[in-house]
């Protein structure tokens, strides 16, 4: 049987719903970020945006922000957030001298420390998961 091809329908209610959700998400994120900035002004320990992230997560958990409304726009934001880090990465322009001097040493350091971290975390967590499993079985 021939099925009709899926056609994206942008009727007006659908579109306005999308816009509403986008605005809702933006407001929710701004409020969380504002709370984060306030907390940072009181306790300058962790960057303000991280406080904001925790507030956002907690408000979602206690249903102050509706997760269903936020979901789609948030997914889009997380998928495309990479572009915000480009300016920081381009800063490598200023460090060609450093790379010429120490490039290989830096690569070795990154390599060794990454593999050390991988080994430590995997080994310890396997111990813990196994211990919990045997506890659960007995």
């Amino acid at each position, binding site marked *: 049987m021939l099925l009709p091809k899926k056609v994206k329908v942008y009727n007006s209610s659908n579109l306005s719903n999308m816009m509403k959700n986008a605005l809702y998400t933006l407001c929710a994120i701004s409020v969380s970020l504002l709370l984060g900035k306030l907390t940072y002004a009181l306790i300058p320990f962790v960057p303000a945006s991280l406080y904001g992230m925790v507030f956002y997560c907690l408000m979602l958990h206690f249903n102050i922000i509706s997760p269903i409304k936020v979901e789609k726009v948030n997914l889009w934001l997380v998928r495309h957030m990479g572009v915000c880090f480009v300016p920081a990465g381009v800063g490598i322009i200023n460090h060609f001298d450093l790379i010429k001097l120490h490039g290989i040493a830096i690569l070795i350091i990154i390599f060794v420390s990454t593999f050390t971290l*991988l080994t430590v975390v995997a*080994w310890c967590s396997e111990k813990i998961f196994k211990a919990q499993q045997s506890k659960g079985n007995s």
Partner: protein
Amino acid sequence: MINDIISPENSTVSLAIFITLITLFLYQFSMKIQQKWQFIWLNPMLITILFLVPFLLYQNITYSQYHQSSQLFTLLLEPAIVALGFPLYQQLHQIRYHWQGIIGVLSLGVLVVLCVSFSMTMFYIYQPSLAIALSLKSVTTPIGIALSEQFSADSSITAFSIIIAGFIGGILGPKWLDLLGIHCAKSQGLAIGAASHVIGTAILAKDKPEHCAYSSLALIFSALLTAILSPLIIPLLLKAFN
């Protein structure tokens, strides 16, 4: 060429518009390339940087000019970090059963990576600011950048080494752990999330869903733990090497 077209009176505004557009265009272009060929090392962030750097050098645009003109992206950085709270919320129920173990292991990992990379850098190169920038390389980019700016280290070195660490861990990590005899999906996922953050998680997401859940859990928690632990550890390490 660009500097000739742009007259000195309105230079900052039009340069800002131009830079913003070209960065967006390059990013979209590299997203399309990655969707077409599906190679994991064709990371959009990496490709955009690799295209932009020669272009800026060719056009004689300095980094301070570029940084000023790309304020829009810097402005969006903080909301983007806040948006990461949603995946954290999605993982909350998973951590409920063994959160003590997971947090313990991850904080041990954060301590180990801070000490190892800091002392190796001090041993080989002996530059404290470089050591700070490199020791923050196992967290996800936004948080790594925010932290290294907080310590007034160079965030561009952190950003670049974060990307390299992501690729190393994501591509070689599963093979390395299989070689060590650790086959459990949960532990492999946790390890790769702790070491190679978003890039490692994205590499796992393609064909290992169980790995991916634990990896995203680990990346968020190790970022938080690094943010909490590094202001305590780094001053100590700085003192120890002076």
